[in-house]
């Protein structure tokens, strides 16, 4: 069964450093998403992406964040200058239409 994959599973970085989280969505899906879950809190929407551009973004997705689909298979989330409060699980999801399928997540730890 096709699935969303994410790398790395765990990323540790120093505050102020740039990180890139990678995702490979399900191959025939057209819509791509990033969500995050801070420990003990809800899963929160960050951004959606369709037709090579951002479709929607939340208030969390400020100028420090960017997304890219650099080739036909990868979908990346970049955080330019990480802050302590960016520590969270980051989930990538993809959908053909309404139902979103999630990857296993990347745990980002900012020290």
């Amino acid at each position, binding site marked *: 069964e096709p699935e969303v994959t994410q790398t790395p599973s765990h990323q540790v970085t120093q505050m102020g450093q740039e990180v890139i989280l990678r995702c490979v969505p399900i191959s025939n899906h057209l819509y791509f998403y990033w969500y995050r879950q801070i420990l003990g809190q*809800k899963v929160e*929407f960050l951004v959606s992406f369709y037709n090579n551009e951002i479709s929607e973004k939340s208030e969390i997705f400020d100028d420090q964040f960017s997304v890219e689909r650099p080739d036909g298979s990868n979908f990346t989330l970049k955080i330019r200058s990480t802050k302590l409060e960016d520590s969270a699980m980051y989930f990538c999801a993809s959908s053909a239409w309404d139902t979103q399928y999630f990857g296993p997540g990347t745990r980002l730890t900012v020290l």
Partner: protein
Amino acid sequence: DQQVKQNSPSLSVQEGRISILNCDYTNSMFDYFLWYKKYPAEGPTFLISISSIKDKNEDGRFTVFLNKSAKHLSLHIVPSQPGDSAVYFCAAGAPSGSARQLTFGSGTQLTVLP
């Protein structure tokens, strides 16, 4: 932001009995609802969904009920199995230009006792 609420943080059920997980929402623009199951250190796994034009959707042991007038949905698992023990999230989506964003509830930890 409390647009989607799961008021029970935990639920314990005996194996073989019915599990009923509840979810309430406030945004009347939501027209698509999903239930996800999540194990620790894994991503949410899609279980079942329902569109607002329906009031019930069934898939094997899982049934989702939607009461639009009450802005309430529930997930029934019958019979419950120990492997069902996990955190269950409800999520809701509203129509948008292209891709939908989902709003999640806070989750209910289901424990199925053998």
